[in-house]
């Protein structure tokens, strides 16, 4: 079962950004699948760490492109990024403390964040960059 689904309408019109979006969704889905199986906590921590790094880097790049395009909703968009980074840190802590709770949190928080962020913030960004 996949947690997040990549939809063509998520494209923002920048090859690099779209590439990263797709890559991250794949990564998160892999993680989610692994959680269903019998993977040790260390692997999960490692994957989470990579996701964290990738998302941080992705946001950094997206924010740069937004600034360069003088994107009007930059501040709001960036705040949403910062919120997600906070959530990911919380998530990592949860996994670190209790993997089961972490899995639930991953499902409830992350998927909703991505769904919302893609359909609102990134969709608006699409109009600007695309």
């Amino acid at each position, binding site marked *: 079962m996949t947690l997040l689904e990549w939809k063509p309408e998520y494209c923002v019109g920048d*090859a*690099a950004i779209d*590439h*990263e979006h797709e890559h991250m969704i794949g990564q998160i889905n892999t993680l989610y699948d692994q959680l269903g199986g019998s993977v040790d906590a*260390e692997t999960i*921590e*490692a994957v*989470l*760490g*990579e996701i*964290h*790094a*990738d998302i*941080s*880097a*992705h*946001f*950094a*790049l997206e*924010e*740069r492109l937004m600034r360069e395009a003088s994107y009007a909703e930059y501040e709001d968009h960036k705040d949403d990024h*910062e919120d997600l*980074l*906070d959530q990911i*840190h*919380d998530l*990592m*802590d949860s996994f*670190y403390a209790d993997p089961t709770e972490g899995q639930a949190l991953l499902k409830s928080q992350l998927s909703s964040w991505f769904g919302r962020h893609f359909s609102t913030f990134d969709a608006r960004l699409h109009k600007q960059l695309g």
Partner: protein
Amino acid sequence: MLKTIQKAGQLAFELPQRWLDRAFGNTLNPLRHLGALTIFFLWIVLISGIWITIFFHTSVVGAFESVEYLTIEQWYLGGVMRSLHRYASDAAIVTVVLHILKEFSFDRYRTARWFSWVTGVPLLWMIIPLGITGYWLVWDQLALYVALVSSEMLDALPIFTDSMARNFLSAEALSDRFFTLMAFTHIIGLPIFLVFSIWIHVFRITRPKINPPRKVMVGALASMLALSFVYPALSQGKADPALVPETLALDWYYLAVYPLLNYWPPATVWALLIGFSLLICIAPWLPPPRKVAPVRIDLENCNGCERCVEDCPFGALEMAPRSDGKKYASEAVVAENLCLSCGICVGSCPTATPFRTRSALSPGIDLPDQTVATIRDRVTEATEHLEGSRRLIIFGCTGKNKLEKLIDAETAVVNLTCMAQLPPSFVDWVLSRDFADGVVLSGCAHNDCQYRLGAKWTEQRMHRERDPQLRKRVDVEKLAMLWTEPWCDFPNTAKAIAAFRDTLSAPYKISDHETSTPVKTRKHRLRPFGAVLAWGLFAAASVVFTIWPRFSQLAEGNAIISLTFSHAGQRVEECRLLSQEELNKLPPNMRKPSDCPRERHPVKVLFRTDGQVQFDKSLAPSGFWNDGESTVYYRVEIPAGTHELYIGMSDSGREEGFDYTGQTEFTLAEGQHVVVEFDHLQKTFIFR
């Protein structure tokens, strides 16, 4: 050897810096803004100079009078402007010298920094002549001395055929035109080059600090203004070539080299100045060499977000088109010759996070000699032994701090190259993974970072004003940033750390994403008094070496005699009329009636006082073809009183005797200046 000198320099700076930190706080400490402060003083000089220019007369008679008018009649404005003009120029030298000494002592002139260091040398060669020409324009007694010695220096260069110094030996010799030239040099020529050179000086560094903080500017201007009212700058009596003043107030900041001319020939002084400048220029490459491996980009982890490029204080990073075929548009590229290996870029990289596991922790940019992965290891190692509920981890920088003294059962220390090398997620990681109960960042003074912007970026990242931001969930009550320079002010740093530890009694909670401000150091109660006192002392320092010690050009009871004239020797061969036959051989357009070989005889001059030979030389003609005038410029000090003066000169190449002679009995008063000239029309010598 070099290290010992630098160490001594650092000690000499650290004590006053510490005092001034108490008085100003280290963000506003003038000793931490020396370069920018110099530029600010140059602004004062520029503005006051414009006012003076409006009233200045560029003529022999007008120069002195117009400055006197400004100083006396218009004391409330013109006088103040004049004083500001002078004192700010002197203050600029004070700050320049401190700036140079500081950058040298703290080893901020080597490797990639050579450019700013070397381009500072031409700045000195512009600022000093600016001061010299400024003193010259006033045309008082000091100006006359400056004019004479400067011309003697210039005459020693093989660019002038005639002696320039001769112009300043008698009032008649000097023309208004000269003041126009001098004013042009002082007001337009040199300043244009100076501004251009300042631009080059800061060209290679990013976000150069051109202006000091506003409060520092206010302090600097107020101290100069106060000085101008308390001790207005005055002229030292109108220039009179016939008199040498007993003593002069010499501005040692600008003219320190000039008295050397009393003892050494100009060539030696030039050699000294040029040699010293060259020594400064090659200093960055003198041993011991210091070069750490520059940062390296890992394209696997770089998506071209540009944060490292924005944060590099030395312009060592730039974006380039993607080279590895990935879908990104660009990638960061390191200019290795500009990289100081400070690691500030590493701290900015979003992929440099300790939440990644040890094996995978390879950020997009990293220092090969001090990787993020090793910092992660050092944190886990250093915190292993910690016990209790008040465990602290202290991050230090520059590697010369004394923080390790604080290591105990509750305290761990990890030293970095620069504080900004630490990605903010380390703070989150340390606290959330329970390696410690509190984090201290103890680094360079806020505005005096060894790597320029490290402290500033760290503070902005932790305050969430700059990317990468410290996560909001981090309980900032558990983070203290102390910009107190622990190697310099260790007791206060230790005290602040202890006080911070006392606040850590509550267990660490992930905060509810509220914004709060990390702990800062306290302010001192007596601050304003200290600041006023410090600026007062600075003003005093700016003026003291312009009036003391006084300088006397002549030993007591002496007078001076100058021989000064140019005279062309006779031609070695007479002109010869060409015969018709010879003329016919020449092309028609080159036929002239006589052939005149151009070479002249040298001019032989002998000068005696009371029968004692003072000067006896054969002076070669000037010019490439030895066809120019021979020039005599010679000054000699003799005791005041009545003397028998004799001069003889021959221009015909004869071995014995002279073609022209002059003899007189002259009574010289103390400090009198007698000039011996040759009247070309009358063919006689004049003593006056």
